[in-house]
């Protein structure tokens, strides 16, 4: 079974620029999550999709972050414009079912550095 695929692995941008991350979940997984992990901290949920609908985006800074999962499969997360404090690893995860009782499978993340 192929795991969760994320790209790019690394990205360096200047503040005020825009950036996009891509995630392809495990085949058949209905739920997709985007997490932000700042160095030295645990992952923080940004947004949760169930198929192509948003379940939870309460912690997504909507003035600069956006995410979509148009066909209910792969997803993109965009930051525009980026700030220095957005430097972090952005992790995508997927699970079979809609509740957290179904195990989460994480990708290897995209490390973003904003200078």
């Amino acid at each position, binding site marked *: 079974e192929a795991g969760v695929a994320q790209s790019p692995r690394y990205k360096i941008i200047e503040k005020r620029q825009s950036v996009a991350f891509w995630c392809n979940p495990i085949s058949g997984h209905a739920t997709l999550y985007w997490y932000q992990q700042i160095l*030295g901290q*645990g*992952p*923080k949920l940004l947004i949760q999709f169930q198929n192509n609908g948003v379940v*939870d985006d309460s912690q997504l800074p909507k003035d600069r972050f956006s995410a979509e999962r148009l066909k209910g499969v792969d997803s993109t997360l965009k930051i525009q414009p980026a700030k220095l404090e957005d430097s972090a690893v952005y*992790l995508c995860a997927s699970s079979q079912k809609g509740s*957290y009782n179904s*195990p*989460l499978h994480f990708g290897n*993340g995209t490390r973003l550095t904003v200078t």
Partner: protein
Amino acid sequence: TQLLEQSPQFLSIQEGENLTVYCNSSSVFSSLQWYRQEPGEGPVLLVTVVTGGEVKKLKRLTFQFGDARKDSSLHITAAQPGDTGLYLCAGLQSGNTGKLIFGQGTTLQVKP
């Protein structure tokens, strides 16, 4: 906001030593998960504990969920260099819309 506090934050030990990592909260969780994350990779689920007082073993790793479901511990016996990594606990809030709350992690280094 429910918080999960992990301790210690950093631990550096010699191969063969035993260690315990703690995950504490003032809130009750319906279940608690433990993950290990290696540099450059995503977290990998090790175990889920659901019942208060539950103990689960995974080779040299022993996981315990507190009786009141507010805390958990991870004990590693005879640590090996391959155990090196970031250990994360994550608590599942109760209810249909419960979220998974992660602790800040414990970085473990096991020196040969």
